[in-house]
């Protein structure tokens, strides 16, 4: 498939990669075909060169092989402290990652890229492998020089093992090698190397002393050298291609190949995965490793299932995507997948069945080859028996404990017996051809209901019973007519075929059921998350679902403002994981990679830590402590867990966005509030101010000329207008204090009588021309309220009446118990509320009449509502039956606690 324009995703990916590379430290690898070619020596010489020209270079770690030449080269170079690790009574010096990160030289030299850290040592290392240490250094922007041999490269691992017969246990992912910025091949002709070896210049580890002779055979060294040269050549090739790729405008674009690698539970699978990697690399293709879970494979032993987990992890570490498919037949599922993913190549293991079995049961490989359309099938030959004998010997067949359901066999035999009884009943009236139908029916029922074993037993019993009871000569096992053999055979085949079909259907149902449960559990969490507000509540919801689905303890750790993770404050939910290691979690948070159990970092930890993040930010860490370790190690379980984490991350991001939107909404509202307030205040303050200023200046200048009565009028107007202004200002201040959250309720036990009395006392002057009727029941319980504020509510309501009703209006204050509330009613028989905008009366700056001369800034009722709501009540306004306005508010009654 040829595309003529760049794939935007790919462009973006390459842009991002460039960006990341710019910040990342550079990795330079001194690469050799085998030990003894002088990698460390060359590296140290180069380091001295840098040092001599004034460069900032430091030695993080050099294997102390006790070689004099090496020691001499180290002189004059800055060496960072190493760390002493205790392990089973011995002490080893190891590279000190933290020292390296603290020192941060321009270049840090760390020998032996493939080294494995002592995961069970004390103190435990941060990472299992040295390449991970180096990755972290690179991530932090430190340039690193290191050394590695060709046999340590993961995808070449078994090739080297096949060549030399020695399997290398310490490997590095190909990605590390491929992504290195500079590879320096240290090449030494095999003859020279053997000479050096004989001269004792090559360090030989004691444990490998026996293997070493085999290893350093000349033929081996030539092969290894060739392998190393080819690997470097591949890299150069890939670099050339990459630069062509970045020449974006001029080139037509090849769609990338996709290589599918199908593996089964057999021993060959590992080899197939590595071969797949090489093929994918060769075509510069994306590759996917597929494991098909067929009904047959579900009954595998634990050891074999574990191997599948290891295989898929190996594939992931080699850079593959891994997929587990379910289906009745492996070939069918693979073909389907290959078609949907538009695969170009399918890599499978070569068929292993030889002779008549291979011919009879067509293997998956043959089937794939036969039905492949639009892609090539590449079969990987099995390794020589001789070479793998050692390995296969280790794999002892574990005992497969299949529970035997004896009662099913009993039931199967019962169907045979019943069939026989029916057949006897039929015998006088029916031909044998029809009697046999009773048995066929019985076989079918047994096959459908009781499984394969019982079905076969029933079929055999049916044949025997039919033969013995009915086939002439009757009551003997001899058969007169040979054509009954056909009847027997067909009966058996029918029974076994149906039983097999049924077993297959049941397995399919089981697999589909498991998949459905996974989907359902994910859906359940997503749905609940969608209905949840706030990040911490979401965390609790997620923890509940994760603990249920994965049978584990879990916790979501959220960062504070400074990005430090903390355990949640609130009470833990059931199965909360309360002892999560915050230092691991913090590492996960800072690096955005998972760590702990089953991951690349700190795999010895008891729990798994998964980052919750999106492209822009890291939101927290999900820590999971499984009850059953194996379960979390299954790739599909881990994928599912990561999907859960992804869902939670999305939901949390949504919550954060909502919070941000809310904040900006509040800000906008505050802004508009401020504007309205300014407009309102300027009106309500300027009007009385004008009167005061006018009256004041008149008194000051013309006081003597005015008569006593006029002076009095002026003085009075100053007094009343000043009082009005004072009211406006205190209302504004009150509301501002409420809005800014400064007001804290100072609740005490109060009687309503007292509060009403106080309110009336404060409004005495203003209410002089109104008649007030008070009807408070004497048995009202005391209220636990802030007296000042409730009095303020009553005062504002009474003020409102004083302002908007004519004199001689009657005011009624009453109260009644209403469930858990006291309802207070303040009503009047005045003109009533304006018909429109009744609901908006309690909004800020609303007044019944817009252009009224009555001063009040429209804040009084807004304050009332704020206060009543703060107390847990509600306030409403409506028409009083019989005319007038009615304001009612409720206050909750609390039980005294003393």
């Amino acid at each position: 498939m040829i595309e003529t324009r760049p794939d935007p995703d790919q462009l973006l990916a390459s842009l991002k990669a460039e960006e990341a590379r710019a910040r990342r430290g550079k990795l330079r690898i001194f690469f050799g075909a085998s030990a003894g070619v002088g990698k460390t020596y060359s590296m140290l010489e180069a380091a001295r060169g840098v040092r001599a020209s004034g460069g900032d270079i430091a030695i993080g770690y050099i294997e102390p092989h006790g070689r004099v030449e090496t020691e001499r080269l180290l002189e004059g170079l800055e060496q960072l402290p190493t760390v002493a690790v205790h392990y089973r009574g011995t002490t080893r010096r190891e590279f000190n990652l933290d020292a390296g990160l603290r020192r941060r030289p321009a270049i840090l030299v760390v020998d032996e890229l493939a080294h494995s850290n002592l995961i069970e040592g004390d103190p435990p290392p941060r990472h299992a492998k040295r390449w991970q240490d180096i990755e972290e250094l690179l991530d932090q922007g430190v340039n690193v020089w290191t050394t590695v041999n060709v046999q340590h490269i993961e995808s070449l691992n078994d090739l080297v093992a096949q060549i030399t017969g020695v399997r290398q246990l310490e490997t590095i992912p190909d990605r590390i090698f491929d992504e290195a910025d500079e590879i320096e091949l240290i090449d030494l002709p095999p003859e020279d190397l053997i000479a050096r070896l004989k001269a004792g210049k090559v360090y030989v580890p004691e444990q490998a002393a026996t293997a070493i002779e085999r290893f350093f055979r000349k033929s081996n060294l030539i092969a290894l050298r060739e392998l190393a040269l080819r690997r470097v050549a591949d890299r150069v090739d890939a670099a050339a291609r990459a630069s062509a790729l970045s020449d974006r405008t001029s080139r037509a674009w090849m769609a990338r190949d996709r290589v599918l690698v199908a593996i089964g539970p057999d021993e060959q699978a590992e080899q197939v995965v590595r071969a797949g990697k090489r093929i994918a690399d060769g075509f510069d293709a994306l590759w996917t490793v597929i494991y098909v879970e067929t009904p047959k494979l579900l009954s595998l032993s634990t050891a074999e299932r574990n191997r599948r987990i290891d295989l898929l992890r190996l594939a992931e570490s080699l850079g593959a995507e891994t997929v587990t498919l379910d289906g009745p037949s492996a070939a069918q599922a693979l073909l389907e997948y290959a078609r949907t993913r538009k695969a170009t190549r399918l890599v499978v293991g070569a068929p292993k069945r030889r002779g008549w079995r291979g011919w009879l049961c067509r293997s998956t490989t043959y089937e794939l080859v036969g039905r492949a359309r639009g892609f090539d099938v590449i079969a990987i030959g099995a390794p020589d028996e001789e070479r793998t004998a050692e390995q296969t010997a280790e794999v002892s067949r574990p005992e497969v404990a299949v529970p035997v359901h004896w009662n099913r066999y009993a039931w199967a035999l019962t169907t045979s017996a019943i069939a026989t009884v029916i057949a006897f009943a039929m015998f006088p009236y029916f031909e044998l051809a029809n009697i046999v139908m009773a048995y066929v029916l019985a076989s079918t029922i047994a096959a459908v209901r009781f499984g394969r074993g019982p079905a076969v037993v029933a079929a055999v019993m049916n044949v025997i019973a039919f033969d013995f009871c009915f086939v002439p000569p009757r009551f003997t096992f001899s058969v007169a007519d040979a054509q009954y053999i056909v009847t027997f055979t067909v009966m058996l085949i029918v029974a076994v075929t149906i039983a097999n079909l049924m077993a297959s259907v049941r397995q399919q149902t089981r697999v589909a059921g498991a998949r459905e449960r996974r989907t359902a559990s994910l859906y359940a969490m997503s749905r609940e998350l969608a209905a949840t507000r706030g990040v911490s509540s979401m965390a609790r919801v997620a923890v509940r679902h994760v603990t249920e689905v994965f049978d584990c303890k879990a916790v979501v750790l959220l960062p504070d403002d400074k990005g430090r993770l903390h355990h949640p404050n609130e009470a833990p939910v059931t199965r909360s994981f309360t002892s999560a290691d915050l230092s691991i979690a913090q590492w996960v948070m800072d690096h955005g990679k998972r760590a702990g159990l089953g991951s690349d970092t700190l795999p010895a930890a008891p729990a798994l830590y998964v980052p919750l993040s999106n492209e822009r930010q890291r939101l927290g860490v999900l820590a999971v402590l499984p009850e059953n370790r194996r379960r979390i190690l299954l790739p599909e379980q881990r994928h599912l867990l990561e999907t859960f984490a992804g869902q939670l991350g999305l939901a949390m991001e949504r919550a954060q966005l909502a919070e941000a939107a809310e904040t900006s909404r509040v800000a906008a509202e505050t802004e508009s509030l401020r504007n309205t307030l300014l407009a309102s205040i300027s009106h309500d303050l300027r009007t009385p101010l004008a009167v005061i200023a006018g009256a004041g200046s008149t008194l000051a200048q013309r006081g003597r000329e005015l008569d006593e009565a006029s002076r009095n009028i002026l003085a009075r107007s100053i007094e009343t207008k000043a009082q009005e202004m004072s009211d406006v200002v205190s209302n504004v201040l009150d509301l501002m204090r409420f809005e800014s959250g400064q007001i804290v309720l100072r609740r005490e036990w109060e009687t309503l009588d007292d509060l009403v009395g106080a309110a009336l006392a404060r409004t005495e002057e203003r209410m002089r021309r109104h008649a007030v009727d008070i009807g408070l029941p004497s048995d009202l319980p005391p209220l636990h309220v802030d007296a000042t504020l409730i009095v303020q509510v009553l005062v504002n309501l009474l003020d409102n009446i004083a302002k908007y009703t004519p004199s001689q209006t009657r005011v009624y204050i009453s109260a009644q118990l209403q469930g858990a509330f006291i309802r207070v009613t303040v009503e009047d028989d005045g003109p009533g509320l304006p018909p429109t905008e009744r609901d908006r009366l309690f909004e800020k700056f609303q007044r019944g009449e817009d252009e009224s001369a009555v001063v009040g800034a429209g804040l009084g009722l807004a304050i009332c509502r704020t206060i009543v709501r703060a107390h847990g009540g509600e306030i409403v306004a409506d028409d009083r039956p019989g005319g007038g306005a009615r304001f009612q508010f409720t206050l909750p009654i609390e039980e005294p606690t003393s």
Partner: protein
Amino acid sequence: MTQAMHRILVIEDDPAIRGVVRVLLAAEQYRVIEAATSARALIEARSHRPDLLLVDLGLPDGDGIKVIQSVREWSLVPILVLSARAMEAQKVAALDAGADDYVTKPFSAPELLARVRAALRRNARTAEQTPVLQFGEIRVDLGRREAKSPGAEVHLTPLEYRVLESLARHAGMIVTAQQLIREVWGPDRADDTRNLRVCLKNLRQKLEPDPARPQHIVTETGLGYRLRVGEF
């Protein structure tokens, strides 16, 4: 006029308000001494021995409450707080520090003068130990522990009587709820305001002509109670 001899120390940093207060008080024949800072206020208080202090809480060189506390260390002189409309907590703090009453700014002239008169009268009464108190139609004889309305004797429970007595001792002044509880129920019941509320409700039923609108036993919301004798 006996008032002519009363000296009032006005402690207030705002010259405009100080001016208004001076004019007001001088018109009523009081002698006015002024101080703009708390340091000055303490000097004036010691040298002039005023009969009443009017203290503003917000002073440039310190809190008015400090002034109240220092004065209270050596004098029982009535102290009136002049405070801007502030939170109850500050008023309570001032009252706890030893102030006798407060007037909220902005205040009206009659209100301020009435408070001043009440404070001075209380001081005089303390000196004379007047045991009889008349408010409205009720006459309370503190010495004989009895209260009478024109018709008959008003029966008060011992608790009610002690609350009334407490209020009467500070007649015209504010008495905080805490203070009342402390004096009547004892210091260990300090947060039990419910009994106090019930007791006052009963007192009003017995002594007030219209208990729903008390004229004599007045609630100072959020602060306490005041027994209003005469004009205030």
